[in-house]
């Protein structure tokens, strides 16, 4: 390449590092806090929170009712809320109705309960196609729904974050709330997968 250095935009890796240095020098951030923040979002603010919400709703009918009436308040009961979790609306998947969530604008996502969005959720292909052909997209992701199941696609925004309450799989009636938690995956709470019995 003969492009002069001054005309090239530095790589994002270098720009990220430059930004971190400049912000650190101005005492606007502490790199150690950045470290712990990344860890916090990667591990603690993860889908485990959402799985606890789902398992409680499966085993406590009154909690399930509250969750479907006011997701934000019911989720807060368990101690989960955050900058992006103020307005969470929960929709319930059943044998005849299936809900799936997308953010067509960017990547709005209920972080406090589901952690960071997966890369496919941010992919332009998923964002545009799931609205137009949800049944096909879900099948490609491994979820074949019968023709008589009605599919509803919910578009998350900064005002409303959708969370799917997946269907409790048959054969798990004897399991306790604690035993149900590990069965609930992130993808089932976005609506692109079903919870499987162990």
């Amino acid at each position, binding site marked *: 390449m003969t492009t002069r250095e001054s005309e090239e935009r*530095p790589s994002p890796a270098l720009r990220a590092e430059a*930004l971190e240095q400049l912000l650190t020098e101005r005492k606007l951030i502490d790199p150690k806090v950045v470290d712990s923040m990344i860890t916090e979002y*990667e591990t603690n603010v993860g889908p485990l929170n959402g799985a606890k919400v789902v398992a409680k709703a499966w085993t406590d009918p009154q909690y399930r009712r509250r969750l479907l009436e006011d997701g934000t308040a019911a989720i807060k009961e368990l101690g989960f809320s955050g900058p992006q979790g103020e307005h969470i609306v929960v929709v319930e998947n059943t044998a005849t109705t299936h809900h799936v969530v997308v953010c067509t604008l960017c990547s709005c996502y209920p972080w406090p309960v589901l952690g960071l969005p997966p890369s496919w959720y941010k992919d332009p292909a998923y964002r545009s196609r799931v609205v137009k052909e949800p049944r096909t997209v879900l099948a490609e992701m491994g979820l074949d729904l019968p023709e008589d199941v009605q599919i509803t696609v919910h578009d998350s925004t900064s005002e409303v974050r959708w969370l799917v309450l997946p269907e409790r799989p048959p054969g798990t009636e004897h399991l306790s709330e604690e035993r149900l938690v590990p069965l609930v995956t992130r993808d089932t709470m976005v609506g692109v997968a079903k919870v499987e019995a162990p």
Partner: protein
Amino acid sequence: MTAPLDPDGPAAPPRTNGELIFAEPWESRAFGLVVTLFEAGAFAWPQFQAALIARIAAWEKRPGRDAAYSYYDHWLGALEDVLVHQGTLSMDEVTARARTLARRPRGHDHTTHIHPE
């Protein structure tokens, strides 16, 4: 598109059901900078969100997109836009520092944080 999750085995529990979220270390740094600044009250979330939406929309409208889609590239650009708009720093400053970093000798990146001089 992701592969369907394993119904059992190590991939099943929620703690491990996530795929790799950050493709490269800088993406996690870019993420960390934004949440750290946000939690410190440096900007309101809608400000950053609007900048991110604008960056992504601009990329999608660009004819003959040359580079592959990089979500965190837009994320980083949105952070720059917010900080420049606030007058916290200038784009030229960031570019100049990035060029200084680019001139480091090979092998510099065996540690994550190196501050010049």
